[in-house]
């Protein structure tokens, strides 16, 4: 279970304040009003953030919010890499191929938005090994359903813990997009897109356990290089 242990270690690093807090002094600089307004010009999420008033946050993001955003970033990395790999595999056709293209572009946009927002505080992208599920349509769709349902539950679990209203407004707008993705992938997989009247949240521990059980995060995540803001999947 090396995969599990490595993932746990990796996620623990994401969760802990240590590495993220090291450059605490830089945080306010990185998330200064000027920088956020600049970011606001480039994408729907950033625009939403600035509209929602993040620019008014006088002291940048709290440690709690940085921590949660990095956690969300890891889930977005996971999804973006998954869809990008599936697209490139050439194994998808028809509606599934179109959905992978659209959803993949969205997840990559989420990654870019979080990288921009977090600046130097962003955690690095781990290496993934999807173990063949991106190379055939049915395994792809089943995994996509799982990832999207997981993302909905994860955002739902974290949203009430966010301290900045601007970050909350963006996160809640992403949360419902993940739910749209979940329904879409379920439809394509042939299962009911909306099963329950009330979607339940999941804790970080629950999410970590499920992600670890997949072994999709490679044994040697690339934690050394700088996060690349040009990352496209």
């Amino acid at each position, binding site marked *: 279970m090396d995969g599990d242990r490595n993932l746990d270690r990796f996620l623990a690093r994401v969760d802990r304040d240590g590495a993220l807090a090291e450059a605490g002094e830089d945080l306010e600089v990185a998330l200064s009003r000027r920088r956020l307004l600049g970011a606001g010009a480039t994408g729907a999420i950033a625009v939403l953030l600035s509209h929602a008033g993040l620019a008014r946050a006088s002291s940048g993001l709290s440690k709690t919010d940085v921590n949660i955003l990095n956690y969300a970033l890891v889930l977005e990395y996971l999804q973006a890499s998954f869809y990008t790999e599936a697209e490139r595999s050439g194994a998808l056709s028809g509606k599934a191929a179109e959905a992978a293209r659209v959803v993949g572009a969205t997840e990559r946009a989420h990654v870019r938005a979080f990288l921009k927002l977090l600046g130097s505080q962003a955690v690095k992208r781990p290496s993934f090994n999807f173990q063949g599920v991106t190379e055939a349509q049915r395994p792809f769709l089943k995994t996509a*359903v799982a990832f999207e349902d997981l993302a909905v539950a994860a955002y739902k679990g974290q949203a009430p813990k966010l301290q900045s209203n601007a970050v909350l407004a963006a996160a809640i707008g992403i949360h419902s997009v993940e739910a749209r993705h979940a329904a879409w992938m379920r439809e394509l997989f042939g299962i009911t897109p909306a099963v329950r009247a009330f979607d339940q949240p999941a804790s970080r521990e629950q999410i970590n356990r499920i992600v670890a059980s997949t072994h999709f995060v490679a044994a040697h995540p690339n934690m050394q290089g700088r996060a690349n803001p040009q990352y496209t999947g």
Partner: protein
Amino acid sequence: MARSAALGEPGQNEGGHSRLAVIVAGAVAVVAATPFLRLLHVGSADAASKAEDERILQLVLKLEYTQVAFYQQALRHASLAGELRRFAQIALGHEQKHLGAIQTALGAKAGPKPTFDFGANTKSPDAFRRSAIKLEDIAVAGYNGQATNLTKGTLAAAAEIVSVEARHAAWVRAIAGQVAAPDPVDKPMTAAEVAAGLHELGLRTA
């Protein structure tokens, strides 16, 4: 498939219940004497509060009333068949549970059931599909638009509802052959925008 099988089949257990009633019942009791005046005035700079929660719950009460009535009438008059009919039936069931949870949360302070005139929107499959997409998008944008105005406990409860509305929106888009999730982030609506959107679809009085 062993690896993805490990992920299981999430979200399949039926019978999820709302924490909304539990969380909000106490809050509403506190503001039971507050006049029912500030409805549809969302967008003010008020900080989240129990009174604010109640005001927002009155807004989403209208939203859920509209959805329930819309699906009920469409199931009677829109000649729905196949997956579109199944969608309408399942969505109706969810909206009825949402409505019930919000009514419970508001108790005696819950606003009255509005009247509706959906016109052609519930009279044919095509019109129903188009209107259902609009209505579910309004629901998502309406809940999302209030996220920062809610107290954290009520936000957690509302978040359990909004993603279900988003699933409905994507589902009916997929049935219509459209891109089911066109945007990277869902844009919020103000309460006034929600009210205007609901009126356009058929909400008349409250």
